[in-house]
């Protein structure tokens, strides 16, 4: 198979786009596509400062690389969850993020959950009702809180995450299976900051296949953590991704069509305003972040229950690795 642009041997064939490209043309194509998505969904503009949430995985590091190459002012945020018991998962992923940032002279903020709050995610999960069965919900709560806090305190225009098309399509299928109206209404390439204290969240890779982000990291020589988080085994996301890939095999482009048609239907009023049952938000009296019920937010209640950290919470400015 030949590259459509130059006729050299192709490195990747994207059946969904009827497009095969060689390495050098692919490394141009991905940033072009990402820029299109950023502009199409009005995610952020040149001159604005954005924060990229990086995990050490392929998607977030590819995103940081792409937006940097496109000329956007992008800092990184790594949250050390302390998932190290015997496998050094967090230590490895943190080192990869630090190496990535240093090689490009980029600023990386690091927030260590065990150091700042007194317990790793597995420890907190074992000792709390929320995470006893599986720590993923608790992990999500902690990450959302910290990402929002750092984005707000650093006065970033947006928080960019590496969610790709497969992530979005899997979540969409999951929520459609249960007709979770609230989640369906909120699923979007851009989550606006609807009130002070909430960060604007954007997903520049929302139209990029997971296979494409992986190919970008491999072709760019970006070192990323290949191992899965040990707690992701048996996750519903992997289950729905597998189903969607089986469909994609027979119908190239099915995942993209599923997602884009959903966004279009939403724009055309498929979901009535208010169907989401959007809750009124309140300010948490302890940390100041928005919460759906009056009183302390779930994040503050979590650490209070565990008795590992005292209010008010520390670090208005996270530890930062700045380019020298």
């Amino acid at each position, binding site marked *: 198979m030949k590259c459509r642009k130059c006729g050299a041997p192709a490195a990747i064939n994207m059946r969904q786009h009827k497009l095969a490209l060689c390495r050098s043309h692919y490394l141009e194509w991905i940033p072009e596509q990402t820029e299109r998505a950023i502009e199409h969904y009005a995610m952020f503009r040149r001159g604005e400062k954005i924060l990229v949430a990086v995990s050490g995985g392929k998607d977030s590091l590819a995103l940081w690389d792409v937006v940097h190459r496109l000329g956007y002012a992008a800092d990184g945020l790594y949250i050390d969850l302390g998932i190290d018991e015997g496998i050094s998962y967090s230590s490895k992923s943190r080192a990869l993020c630090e190496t990535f940032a240093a090689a490009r002279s980029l600023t990386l903020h690091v927030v260590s959950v065990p150091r700042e709050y007194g317990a790793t995610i597995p420890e907190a999960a074992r000792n709390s009702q929320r995470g006893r069965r599986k720590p993923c919900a608790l992990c999500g709560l902690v990450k959302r809180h910290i990402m929002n806090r750092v984005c707000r305190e650093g006065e970033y225009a947006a928080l960019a995450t590496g969610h790709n098309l497969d992530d979005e399509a899997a979540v969409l299928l999951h929520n459609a299976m249960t007709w979770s109206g609230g989640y369906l209404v909120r699923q979007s390439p851009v989550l606006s900051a609807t009130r002070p204290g909430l960060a604007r969240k954007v997903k520049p890779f929302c139209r990029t296949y997971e296979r494409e982000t992986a190919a970008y990291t*491999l072709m760019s020589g970006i070192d990323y953590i290949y191992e899965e988080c040990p707690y992701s085994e048996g996750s519903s996301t992997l289950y729905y991704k597998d189903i969607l890939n089986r469909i994609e095999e027979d119908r190239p482009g099915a995942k993209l069509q599923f997602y884009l048609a959903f966004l279009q239907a939403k724009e055309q009023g498929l979901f009535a305003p208010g169907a989401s049952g959007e809750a009124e938000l309140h300010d948490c009296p302890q940390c100041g972040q928005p919460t759906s019920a009056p009183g302390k937010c779930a994040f503050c209640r979590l650490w209070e229950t565990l008795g590992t950290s005292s209010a008010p919470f520390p670090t208005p400015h996270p530890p930062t690795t700045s380019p020298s």
Partner: protein
Amino acid sequence: MRRMETSSSPATLIHRGKRFEVRCGTTLRDAVRKLGFSPESVLAVRNGELVTDDRILQPGEEIQLVAVISGG
């Protein structure tokens, strides 16, 4: 001594450290499907370079299948 590769020598596909011997002369895509993997969920790397899945497998060659799906 250099081993002679014959048309009956298998090719080897490696996925997450596991090695699978597969028949040559078929496409990589067909071989991946026969092993029970979705071609949408892997990328193929040969000698450090990505290759497309229409490649006809050659006797004795080794191809790494890089899993691309993650989630949690």
